């Protein structure tokens, strides 16, 4: 059987689906941010999968979640290379940047990451997510959604309004948290600039 080159294959895949990894330290809300994105995809009737990091994860250790969003049926929810990365801390950037595909969107939490993205074939955005969460909404725990908001703007993958709807669903039993989380998404969305 004749060969299909891997690069040709990657091009086919890029047109159909997005693979995002959200990585940080345990407690930064990387699993939840992924869940919110997956729920936003459901709001837009897209196919989506969410998969949590594996290993004996503890608060302060590394954690990540992988979200795939597609217009078509999704194969494995576990992927080896990503078309997007949200790095909430420096370790995560070091670990996952090499696995980013050319053209990938990289959101860097510049409050905690002091270095620049050292690849010219990806699109890097620096967002002081922890500072924005801490200073503008008085809750540093919302840095995950600030970064997610920035990703929504940078990628255009899903609407901000869908992510806000996802907040309504996921916080249905703790409704008082909805405005804060929606604000975090919006602040991130509006602060996103490439550079």
């Amino acid at each position, binding site marked *: *059987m*004749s*060969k*299909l080159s*891997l690069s*040709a*294959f990657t091009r*086919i*895949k890029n047109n159909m689906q997005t693979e995002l990894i959200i990585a940080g330290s345990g407690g930064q809300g990387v699993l939840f941010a992924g*869940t919110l994105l*997956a*729920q936003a995809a*459901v709001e837009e009737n897209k*196919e*989506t*999968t*969410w*998969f*949590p990091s*594996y*290993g004996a994860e503890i608060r302060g250790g590394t954690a990540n979640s992988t979200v795939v969003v597609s217009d*078509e*049926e*999704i*194969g*494995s*929810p*576990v*992927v*080896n290379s990503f078309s997007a990365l949200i790095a909430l801390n420096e370790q995560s950037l070091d670990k996952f940047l090499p696995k980013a595909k050319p053209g990938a969107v990289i959101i860097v939490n510049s409050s905690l990451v002091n270095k620049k993205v050292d690849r010219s074939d990806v699109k890097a955005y620096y967002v002081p997510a922890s500072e924005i969460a801490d200073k503008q909404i008085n809750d540093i725990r919302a840095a995950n959604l600030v970064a997610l908001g920035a990703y929504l703007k940078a990628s255009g993958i899903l609407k901000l309004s869908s992510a806000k709807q996802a907040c309504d669903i996921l916080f249905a039993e703790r409704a008082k948290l909805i405005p804060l989380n929606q604000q975090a998404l919006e602040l991130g969305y509006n602060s996103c600039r490439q550079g």
Partner: protein
Amino acid sequence: MKKTLMKGNIALCEGAIAAGCKAYFGYPITPQNEVPAHMSKRMPELGLVFLQAESEVAAINMVLGASATGVRVMTSSSSPGVSLKQEGISYLVGCELPAVIVNVQRGGPGLGNISGSQADYFQATKGGGHGDYRMIVLAPSSVQDMYDHTMLAFDLADKYRTPVMLLADGVVGQMMEPLMLNKYIPAATGDRSWVLDGARGREPRSVKSLLMAEGALERHNLELRKKFDLIEANETRIETKNTDDAEIIIVAFGISARVAYSTMRALRAAGKKIGVARPVTLWPFPQKTISELAKPGRKFLVAEMNMGQMVEDVRLAVNGKCPVEFYGRPGGGLVNQEEMIERINKM
């Protein structure tokens, strides 16, 4: 109806509850801990039984006891824990008791690790416990399947008075994706004349697997065989896609079948004639369909997250009519699309 975003492990719980599961007995082990965690909340809310046993052995025997009283009952575990349940599974078959047993497989042998695996195929389909028995094994490959197959498992268990295993894996268990929470449609109630529900006003009944009388055990085994033959005739399930013109058919179950499908779509888009055959029941194995697919000029690739288990059943079904090749990743590894494409390019 809108789809709901849910984890595979939670979906199987909701499927069980929808199907009328009255009791759950389990013992924690990753990667299926969401099952006892969710059941510990949901079952008491509904006035049903949740019990964390002192061990997997205790849990499976509690399942046996509850089943003898005629209620729908489930246990779940992951590979090392399911090894411990094997004696009880053999007893359930011997006693002809329905039950649903979930194995969210992890890597082995031994404690292995907590990542998904498909290395318990032999254990599930070839009789992990002692004695000459068969067990219905369903292989879910999506969160939707985790929900639907659990409901089906309860129906099949009741219909044939035999345990049914849901052979999932850590990936399908841990992943979230949207599913339709389809309404459960109750199946016809089978024969209930064996249920131990109190002998007042009727002759006592007994449920046992010890048959010491002259000829009793062999007669029992022959009766069981008739039942297994009936299950093979009626309940074999397989999904096929694009097999008509396929030059290569990928045979895969569970999580590996998803990778097979996405590989097929990518290669079809590039003009390659690839099909997929996905056994939904691993026992009864879809021998007949695979055998019919084995036509001259065609090749098979069996993909599994183990060192080659279902491939043996595929080779038996193909019976030398076509080449059967293998792509596998053992415990600790996951099959992936890039490797599957490379493997197909080499065929």
